[in-house]
């Protein structure tokens, strides 16, 4: 029985690209790229640790962009952010097919292309939701602060959107599931590792962190949300389809 080679990488996109580089370099017969977060001991597979290497990653990325196309590159990155367990397998196959000249953003009847396009769609939809559902609160340090818990790791995509939009205010968006944030300081965005206390949202703690006017604006927004509703057209099914309950937690208009 042939051994399967497991390439274990650190879970970052650069790490994944480095692993792809090694696949082309070492040409294993059967290979599985696995993020260290989900790697499990397995007696039949041979494990190799892949070290993230910016130079190798850049080479693969450039290759993808020039040989397979910019759009394909964008799709591959977005699909990667889905964090789905099959992402490495699908993306490696897509990259291989792409380098062989297959049109991986067009042939929707191919199973891998279809899966890729579905992942891209899922991530895109979640990214769009976060663009919409972020609710900033003004802290006493004059930073607009928001928390999110997206289904996928969309924050890097959201960061670009918010940078273009809020160029004249400092802001910080914190991903509470993944324990990191993006901070904009009026000049550039930077990724920050931080822990934010859970009590920040409680009504006792809020006055300590946020400005006095902040509460008033949340209150005005809640009122606006109520006033703009037309009760005789009520349609909760449609409402929930657009704003599923799991997102309510951070929506000011949905707070009691």
């Amino acid at each position, binding site marked *: 029985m042939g051994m399967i080679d497991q390439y274990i990488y650190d879970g970052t996109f650069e790490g994944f690209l480095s692993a792809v580089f090694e696949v082309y370099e070492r040409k294993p017969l059967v290979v599985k790229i696995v993020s260290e977060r989900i790697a499990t001991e397995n007696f039949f597979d041979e494990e190799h640790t892949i070290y993230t290497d910016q130079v190798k990653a850049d080479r693969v990325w450039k290759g993808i962009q020039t040989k397979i196309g910019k759009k394909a590159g964008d799709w591959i990155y977005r699909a990667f952010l889905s964090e789905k367990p099959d992402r490495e397998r699908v993306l490696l196959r897509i990259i291989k097919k792409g380098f062989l000249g297959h049109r991986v953003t067009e042939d929707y009847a191919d199973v891998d292309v279809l899966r890729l396009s579905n992942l891209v769609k899922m991530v895109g939809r979640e990214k769009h939701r976060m663009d919409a559902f972020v609710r900033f609160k003004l802290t006493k340090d004059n930073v607009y602060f928001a928390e999110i818990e997206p289904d996928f790791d969309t924050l890097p995509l959201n960061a670009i959107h918010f940078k273009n939009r809020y160029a004249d205010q400092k802001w910080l968006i914190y991903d509470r599931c993944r324990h990191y944030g993006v901070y904009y300081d009026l000049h550039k965005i930077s990724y920050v590792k931080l822990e934010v206390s859970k009590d920040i949202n409680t009504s006792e703690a809020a006055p300590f962190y946020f400005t006095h006017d902040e509460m008033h604006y949340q209150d005005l*927004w809640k009122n606006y949300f109520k006033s703009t509703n037309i009760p*005789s057209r009520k349609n909760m099914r449609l*409402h929930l389809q657009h704003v599923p309950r799991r997102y309510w937690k951070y929506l000011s208009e949905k707070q009691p």
Partner: protein
Amino acid sequence: MNFERIKEKLNILADAAKYDVSCSSSGSKRANKNKGLGDSSGMGICHTYTEDGRCVSLLKILLTNHCIFDCAYCVTRKSNDIKRAAFKVQEVVDLTINFYRRNYIEGLFLSSGIFKNADYTMERLVAVAKKLREEENFNGYIHLKSIPGASDELMREAGLYADRLSVNIEIPSEKGLKLLAPDKKREDFIKPMQKVKNEIIQYKSEKKLIKSTPVYAPAGQSTQMIIGASGETDAEIMYTSAYFYKQFKMKRVYYSGYIPISYDERLPSIGTEVPMMRENRLYQTDWLLRFYGFDIRELLNKEHPNLETDIDPKLSWALRNLEHFPVDINKADRRMLARIPGIGMRSVHKIIQARRYRKLNWEHLKAIGISINRAQYFLICDSATFETKDRTAAQLKSLIIGTSGSKWRGAYSNQLNLFGSNAPLTTS
């Protein structure tokens, strides 16, 4: 800021503005400038949805609900006994900026009752927009309602600050207007539309010559018609709509099912159901005209002055024109593909791309995401099994309604998804 007072005004003036269904905030291309605030260059975003499922994208308010007119269909009408309020210009500016900075909204949609006269009112609307742009360096979206009868000069200025301008025609026919808003004349609506259209054309052509020419209402103009208040047929409504699209280069026409707000006997009585299904069918028709290449005369005409309520207008057309089917998925052009019931424009696009690499069969079509239930009777593909039986339109209709499991479920039946995820009521 006196928050209690503002809250009270906001409640009154948002409540009065909510009957305008437009909430679109896209199509502007106004990018962030000089590191200021805001950006409206992308697709509009719905930041939340009301409990009736409508997109909330803009802060939609009236400047005031004082009004000298008495249009029967309007809550703000002079004779209505309601609380009145008025915002100051600066109050609207502050609310907009503070909501925008918190990512609640894409911008402002400002309309107003008419106080004193048309120009006096329009001047104040323009003042809000001007302040936002010039003092706050605001690049978010601004939609201003043009007040019927406002001067050309004010309309010109409005377009320099606003992304979109609109005048609501409200009543689709002249006879209806005469009955329900006798002090209003159709020309008062038409004149500002014509003005805006001309300015857009003129600014565009000047911009070609001189780069620094400012943009004028980059998201164009729109209008709204109330459905079911004045007895028009669907054909009358949609022919009016088609005329507006053509004549004034409208970006959007909105259809708003009449919500009974008055005991006036010229109007449907309070308690009458809002015609939501009809509204939905009109939006679907509108989409077929704008994106699917249909001509209005194919969908509505003397023989068919009203849309069917139990099936969507595309299926309805297909059943009346069975001689065009079945369509060969692997050969047909874009136009015919788009006419197959159960296939949306996105699937059309995917089919055209995918069939370059192989002949498509049922499995492929399923994977692409077409609605097989509907489409199966109208197409052939690269499979051996087909619906070969010759069926009459009536038989097909009952088969399709039967299998889609969604017969007529009453006015609240949620069929807004027939055209994919872009429900017509969301921002476009």
